């Protein structure tokens, strides 16, 4: 159960973030903040899998893509309203995640990473290698999964019509709302019975099993449940950019997101959020440097892994009781 303190921190953060469009007139800042919310949802859920559940899954962006593609395809082929397509896409993602989890979770650490990465690559190849035309709209040949071009014009949430040029402000608040829900969910997991079960499994697997904790079952639940918000984030990403293509499968994006978790503090509640913020700002600051940008991110990641493996939340100043995710005796 989230503590009152967790909820207070979340409320303050949300309230502060909600002010951003009011204090700045710059569209760029607001749209980048929206993108931050999307990545923050992805990393809070990935952190549950990676840091709390101890599952070395690299399927996170593939699940994100499942959410995004489901939304686009539901809109494109069935002209479903996006408000309806979003929850359906999230549930489809949960279904796919459950299947992937059932296949992977009996394996040990590195094999989970390999198999989940293989699943992601398979989906990528399935999308890009399919060149047969499924439909032939005026814009040209359209493969079933959109091919290398991906999908556009599959619908939106209606804010462009409602608010005109200011639609992006509405998307900002939708993103913030979804992030708040995703953080609440991760709080409930970490502070609740599942978080306790995984902490027991980390401390002493044999003893935890003898006290009735089934590792496979709870890992599968976590894997499936965390896919809901991951899929929802993907869905909102597609809607926000009014486009989705196979670029979401890129390894550099996967590493960018993983770095957020490592920099912030793996397994903690607020670490991934902090990491997401810092890495997006760093990325922004290095925008002028072209190729040096990737090298800079690589250096940051390497530095943290070597010198601060527990991330910024592992620093003494951040280790106030109850502030970091791990339950401690306080």
């Amino acid at each position, binding site marked *: *159960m989230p503590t009152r303190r967790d909820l207070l921190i979340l409320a303050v953060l949300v309230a502060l973030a909600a002010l951003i469009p009011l204090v700045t007139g710059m569209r760029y800042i607001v749209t980048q903040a929206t993108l931050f919310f999307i990545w923050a949802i992805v990393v809070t859920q990935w952190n549950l899998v990676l840091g709390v559940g101890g599952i070395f899954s690299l399927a996170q962006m593939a699940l994100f893509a499942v959410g995004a593609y489901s939304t686009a395809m539901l809109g494109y082929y069935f002209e479903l309203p996006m408000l309806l397509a979003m929850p359906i896409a999230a549930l489809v993602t949960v279904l796919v995640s459950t299947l992937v989890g059932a296949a992977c979770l009996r394996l040990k650490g590195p094999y989970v990473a390999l198999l989940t990465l293989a699943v992601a690559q398979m989906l990528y190849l399935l999308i890009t290698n399919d060149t047969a035309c499924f439909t032939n709209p005026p814009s040209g040949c359209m493969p079933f999964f959109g091919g290398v071009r991906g999908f556009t014009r599959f619908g939106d949430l209606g804010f462009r019509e409602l608010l005109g040029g200011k639609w992006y402000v509405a998307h900002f608040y939708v993103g913030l709302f979804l992030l708040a829900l995703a953080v609440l969910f991760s709080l409930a997991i970490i502070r609740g019975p599942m978080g306790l079960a995984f902490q027991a499994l980390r401390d002493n697997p044999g003893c935890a099993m003898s006290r*009735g*904790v*089934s590792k496979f079952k709870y890992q599968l639940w976590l894997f499936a449940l965390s896919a809901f918000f991951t899929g929802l984030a993907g869905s909102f990403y597609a809607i926000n950019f009014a486009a989705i293509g196979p670029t979401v499968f890129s390894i550099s994006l996967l590493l960018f997101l993983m770095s957020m978790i490592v920099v912030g503090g793996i397994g903690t509640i607020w670490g991934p959020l902090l990491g997401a913020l810092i890495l997006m700002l760093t990325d922004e600051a290095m925008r002028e440097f072209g190729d040096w940008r990737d090298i800079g991110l690589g250096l940051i990641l390497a530095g943290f892994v070597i010198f601060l493996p527990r991330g910024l939340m592992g620093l003494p100043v951040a280790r106030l009781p109850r502030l970091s995710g791990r339950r401690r005796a*306080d």
Partner: protein
Amino acid sequence: METAAGDDQMEEPLLTCRNVSKHFGALAAVNNLSVKVKAGEVLGIGGPNGAGKTTLFEAISGLNPASSGEIIFQGRDITRLPPDAVCHAGIARTYQLNAGFDSMSVRDNVRVAAYFGRRNRRIPGFRFGSDSDAQVREALELVGLADKGDELTGRLPVVDRKLLMLAGALASNPKLLLMDEPVGGLNPKEIDLVMEVTRRIVGRGITIILIEHVMRFLVQLSDRVLIMHHGEKIYEGSPQGLVHDRNVVDVYLGEGASQRLGALMQQVSA
């Protein structure tokens, strides 16, 4: 064919180990062992190091399943059940070493068992509920750790860690408790404390199998004693008979210890 309860009028035993063996390569750590434990009984297991006592516990609790033979608990074959299912069936165990969840508070440690150990939860919940709070409190009170609930497990002294393992085991509401060297490494005063707690557990009607090298603990608590050597049973019977058994004295106790133990038992029964 099994002639069943006939001669000793034993009612349906709570636990039956029938021809249980555990092989590690060519080594038979437990070799064709059979034993029955009836409800409410305390069975003490002794024997030299490497006799296969803990391996037997590993097999019963499902952490390291038996190579052959069967283990029947309340009429149900549990030989191949995973540890969590064995726990849900009603068997809890403690460990020789300080096994616990070191990064948790004492209370959360026991909460793991109270929440997950009582029944198989198909769907994980989001909150613990007040019933598990009450179960945690009850288990901590039973072992006398009620006022240490907030302490960090990793920092507890040895005797408290032993008691905490007991509290964790009890919180899963077991019918059978397996205690692996509950007083190993404790001083005489602490041994008396654990003995008192164990008697309280027996008073609750919980059946116990305990492994112990401290013979005064073993003989004073056990209704029946089983001595193992090289994976086999070399003695099964009353604690009093132990010191008169030539084989046990030679293999395990030695002359001096057996005389002291004999004197102790006379003193206790007098």
